[in-house]
């Protein structure tokens, strides 16, 4: 069982390799492999969560080299939570994708698995450079996935996404160079210890390193003014891909939480970038709400809702109390799953509307209007934070934890604007239908996948208390970086 920590990386990795080996395009075999691997992630992630829930931080020394010299994987509550969330999101997305979207281009299943490998790796690694490597793994896979399918819009969105992220990767390398060049280490825990002892030039350079990483993570997380690429890219991506991408921005958020909660948690650099993060988070939140209102396609609207959630979360992160982080994590779970579900839903809507696709214009009614309408209504309620679904619980938790009038204003105001946008969209799509759409029935598994994701929102509300408690436990551990450092470097190393 000691190897369980690395399983979330290796399972998709090997699945991806096997899929790569399968050259005869036996689609059913591919689907089976992909689904099996993704399914396997869920018990693994649950096992890891259970392991982490004990409060003990698991450390896996790759190559049997001890930290800080070798690379370590670290399983604390935060990483376990993120891995679990990824698994829960990925399965429905893949089921949806296995109903035909996977045929719209080559290598869908392989890329999907390797994307999961990258995401899980990024969540689990305890090493700064290894984080970069896993970022690249998940990025390159996401490039491939974002471009899965055809169409100029997708290519254009893809080009923008790729170029920006390549520049981001370059910046990340500069930041890593500075990190290593000042502290002489790459292990996050060791870095945390060493960075708190820096002074003079090295301290200034380490600060620059932190700020540059901050920009990089901000780009991944899609913060103002670095989110502009996201709506087009996500809206044009194939639905299951867009759904999976709901976790991608969260990787950026996770990275900020991890790096700033751990690596830059001590010494003169504690709280680095927190104030600007606060401001930027609010601007992101506000502008994304405006984007929701101004969106002219459903997919684009959902993408903006995703950006809104980023703003919401980042503000919670910037507040950086354990309570705020706990509330933020709850909201993170909620927004990831709901936005993922909404991306799928947008696609289901698109399917029945022919040429009009997901444009928010009156047109033929989507196939399965009744069911989709109910799902849309529920999703909209959840995502804008109206009761009784998880969005409300998350929002209340955040507001209680972050008692800042400005935040409340943005959170509630943004919610209202989004509500207006969504009510317009919903009434156009489901009420203003000018006739029946294509006759085809809704595809069962597709619908089931969508329902599965959206059904998490009542579940998260009903079992809100245990989930919140778990999130608070995660946050509690997170806010004591010393625990992490001791676990990685051995007790007594930490001065924090």
């Amino acid at each position, binding site marked *: 069982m000691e*190897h369980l920590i690395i399983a979330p990386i290796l399972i998709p990795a090997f699945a991806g390799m096997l899929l790569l080996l399968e050259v005869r395009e036996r689609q059913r075999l591919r689907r089976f492999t992909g689904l099996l691997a993704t399914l396997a992630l869920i018990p693994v992630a649950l096992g890891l969560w259970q392991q982490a829930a004990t409060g003990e931080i698991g450390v896996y020394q790759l*190559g049997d080299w001890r930290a800080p010299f070798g690379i370590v994987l670290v399983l604390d509550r935060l990483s376990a939570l993120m891995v679990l969330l990824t698994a829960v999101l990925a399965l429905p997305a893949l089921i949806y994708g296995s109903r035909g979207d996977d045929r719209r281009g080559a290598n869908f299943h392989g890329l999907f698995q390797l994307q999961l490998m990258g995401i899980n790796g990024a969540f689990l690694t305890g090493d700064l450079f290894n984080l970069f490597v896993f970022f690249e793994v998940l990025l390159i896979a996401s490039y491939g996935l974002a471009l899965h399918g055809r169409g100029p819009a997708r290519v254009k969105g893809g080009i923008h996404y790729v170029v920006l992220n390549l520049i981001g990767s370059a910046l990340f390398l500069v930041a890593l160079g500075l990190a290593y060049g*000042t502290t002489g*280490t790459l292990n996050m825990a060791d870095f945390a210890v060493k960075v708190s002892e820096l002074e003079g030039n090295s301290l200034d350079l380490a600060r620059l390193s932190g700020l540059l990483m901050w920009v990089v993570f901000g780009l991944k997380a899609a913060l103002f003014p670095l989110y*502009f690429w996201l*709506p087009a890219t996500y809206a044009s991506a194939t639905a299951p891909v867009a759904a999976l991408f709901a976790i991608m921005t969260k990787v950026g958020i996770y990275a900020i939480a991890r790096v700033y909660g751990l690596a830059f948690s001590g010494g003169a650099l504690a709280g680095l970038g927190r104030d600007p993060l606060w401001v930027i988070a609010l601007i992101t939140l506000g502008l994304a709400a*405006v984007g929701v209102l*101004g969106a002219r396609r459903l997919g684009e609207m959902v993408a903006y809702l995703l950006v809104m959630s980023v703003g919401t979360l980042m503000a919670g992160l910037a507040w950086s109390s354990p309570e705020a982080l706990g509330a933020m994590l709850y909201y993170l779970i909620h927004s990831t799953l709901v936005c993922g579900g909404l991306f799928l839903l947008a696609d289901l809507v698109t399917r029945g509307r022919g040429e009009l696709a997901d444009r928010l214009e009156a047109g033929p009614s989507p196939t399965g209007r009744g069911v989709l309408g109910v799902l849309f209504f529920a999703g909209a309620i959840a995502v804008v934070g109206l009761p009784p679904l998880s969005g409300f619980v998350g929002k209340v938790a955040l507001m209680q934890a972050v008692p800042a009038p400005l935040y409340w204003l943005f959170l509630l105001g943004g919610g209202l604007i989004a509500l207006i946008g969504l009510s317009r969209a919903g009434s156009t799509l489901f009420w203003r239908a000018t006739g029946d759409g294509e006759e085809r029935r809704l595809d069962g598994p597709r619908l089931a996948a969508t329902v599965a994701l959206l059904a998490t929102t009542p579940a998260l509300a009903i079992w809100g208390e245990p989930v919140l408690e778990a999130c608070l436990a995660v946050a509690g551990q997170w806010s004591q970086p010393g625990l992490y450092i001791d676990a990685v470097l051995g007790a007594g190393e930490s001065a924090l």
Partner: protein
Amino acid sequence: MNLSILVLLPFLGAALPPLAERFRASRTLLALSAAALPALALALMVAPARRVIAGDTVLSSLQWLPSLGLDLAFRLDGLSLMFAMLVLGIGLLIILYARYYLAANEKAGRFYAYLLLFMGAMLGVVTSDNLLLLVVFWELTSLSSFLLIGFWSHNSGARKGARMALTVTGLGGLALLAGVLLIGQVVGSYSLGEALASGDAIRASGLYPLILCLVLLGIFTKSAQFPFHFWLPHAMAAPTPVSAYLHSATMVKAGVFLLARFYPMLAGTNLWFDLVTLAGMATLIWGALAALFQHDLKGLLAYSTISHLGLITLLFGLNTELAAVAAVFHIINHATFKASLFMAAGIIDHETGTRDMRRINGLWRYMPYTAVLAMVASAAMAGVPLLNGFLSKEMFFAETLQSDRLGAMSWVLPLGATLGGVLSVAYSARFIHDVFFNGEPVNLPKFPPHEPPRYMKVPVEILVALCVAVGVFPALTVAGLLAVAGTATLGGTLPEYHLSIWHGFNLPLLMSVVALVGGVLVYSQRQRLFRWHARLPEINANLIFERAMQAVARFAGALSGRLRNGSLQTYVAWLLAVVSLVLLTQLGPHLLSGERALLPLDGVALLAGAMLIVAAVITAILHRHRMTAIMSISVVGLVVSLVFVRFSAPDLALTQLSVEVVTVMLLILAMYFLPVRTSAESGVFRVSRDLFLSVVVGGGVGVMAFAMMTSDFNSISGFFLENAKPGGGGTNVVNVILVDFRGFDTFGEITVLGIAAMGIYALLKDLKLTSPGADATGRPWARDAHPLVLVTISRPLLPLALLVSVYIFLRGHNLPGGGFIAGLVTSVALLLQYVASGVGWMHHRMPGDYHPVVALGLLLAGITGVASWLFGHPFLTSTFDYIHWPLVGKFEVASAMLFDTGVFLTVVGATLLMLANLGKLSLLDDKGAGAAYDGDETGQGGGA
């Protein structure tokens, strides 16, 4: 009995009608299925109601989200009992009414479901004992009313009305949430009981004004108080049962319910008085005035509702206990007469096919029974004695006379109240006269109208009977309920009051008389008033709101369109601007003060550096001459390799050199399909902006590099140098790091390479590009696709290059080299074969698909890593040993070598997968195909 079950019942009930509909139940059965659970709830309420009447407060609580302070806590006290009875009682009547109202082809199941959802939400609002729970139900009323108002979704008015209601009440709901959270902050709990007991603390808190404003915003929007009243008339687009329900007993009453509920908590201050009274007064008069001028039957009722809500609000604002009781009383009365009026209006609409009072005339002759009911209810609304409206209105007049908060201006309140009364009488008179008398109907869509079905009248009859009963025998009917409700509202003892018809000749009576007479007078002057009104500019709130919303949406679209303008250049500029900002704020001359000794600069380095700088800048300047740019960028790569050579990094130099070759091939492959050059298209501004960003970012990174190089640091690298040989079994520390210490990075890295190859394959699949038939100058391509000399030399180079690859691979662990470089050399050698002999020729000699090569490479690396599990070690733990063979001597076998073989295979597979497929592109092209295959066998000559 647990109160939560009570609240749950309507929600559960919402599932029944759609089910019944699915099983094709009759309309009556549908209505029964809808009514079943609310009726049960009403029945179940009897027992707790007894306790409440006896003076108890029934509480029940379930845990839901204790860490948020959000529990499923319910209370039944006088106030909530009164409201619960209204909600359930009138709700049942509405269900009955709707049974006849809805047309046969309408989705009654869905309608009842929405209605019951709404009923449950409303019941939740009035019985919540937790402030957050109250907000939950509050928002649920907004959401379910959205569905109800938009029920006739094919109707544009219904959609817009629904959205408007949702927007306005949604705004209020959010404000209320904020207010409640603040109350929770002050009180330290969200328990309603505790909050009610902490009125003094709340009023004393600095947050009080904010709390009050937020809560009032919630209340005013919900109760359609001026200036948030405009949504209500447009909500009339809903089916009439909905209007009857929402705008008499429920939705809008939620707002005034909250005024009552929070009365002990928030009332009693001057701010309360000012805000609540002012809003109430404005609403009272504005609503009444507007009601008078409506030609739409439901419009009149809607505005009258607004006006009456203003009255109730005003009463609460007066800060006297009696006024609060009067307000509660009027809530009951208004619910009964307004519900019956709406139903009557619905009947009329149903029977005549229109709601336009200019066409509906003289219905007395066609439906006298309905006319009587409607007239009685109208009279109650007008405040005619012997009807319930009179009683509460009398109290209202009396209370306006008591207030002295306005000092010398105190007369304004009774005057306003009287004016409201006058108008109220006037529009009630219009409802009676204009509809049932006033000549003959004009051009009715349905003619002649009849009395409605028997049971459609029953709810109206019941309600009208209640109006009369309360009006005549208040003490016997309503007094008990009012007493407990009043007590609960005030949160203490009830003031002295008498519910009787006759209080003697006093000022309130005079005001009532003035109102009645004045109202009739005003109505008699209606033609003149209508003419005057017709000349006023029309204010269509719907239109304004819709336009405003559209404008806002357009603005939003424009703003986000401006930000997200679809231009990558802008996005990149934003990203770099952020970086520049970071650099400009953080960099300074202090960074140039490093203590580390500098290495001496020599001429060779200087010139080589200059070469690189020139080549880099030239690449940037000449980028439009693309082939030239490729050449100059190659120079950059070459000099970078030299830098690696110079500064003790032979591995890097080797890697850089071989990557360089592959990259150049890649770029040239792409150039075939891309324009050879582009014209200048950046304006001066853009170029100077870009130059600025380049200088800042480039300069910044340079300064950081200098600062870093000139400061000392301690590194973990000593460990690697010490342990490479004993622990990793190799002397080339860089390689040992790559395959052992940080083998996991390498594992990720080859995965990246593999994924890139997969992604590229996917991108190239079915890609259609036109192969240019001639070069940029228009010259047709040369005929000789596979020049002899190139072909003949390149082939023996292959085994030679493979030999060199083996050499580089084998020595990698101990000396510069390794799997990467070996892989790249092999790839280049194979690519050369592609260039020389073509895809077709290679196709017979190489695997058709390189996917498995990549996969095998990755699997080998992965399996090597997993194999260490067998020995109880973590992933990628390496092992090595020395083997002695006769003749050969001692040599080392390391598992890292296996890993490195995986690296080798991946690199070869991925590189070829990328480039060979890119090369195949032209084969797909119809035009280029013939030419490409021309020389396929060139150089093959004889024998095979």
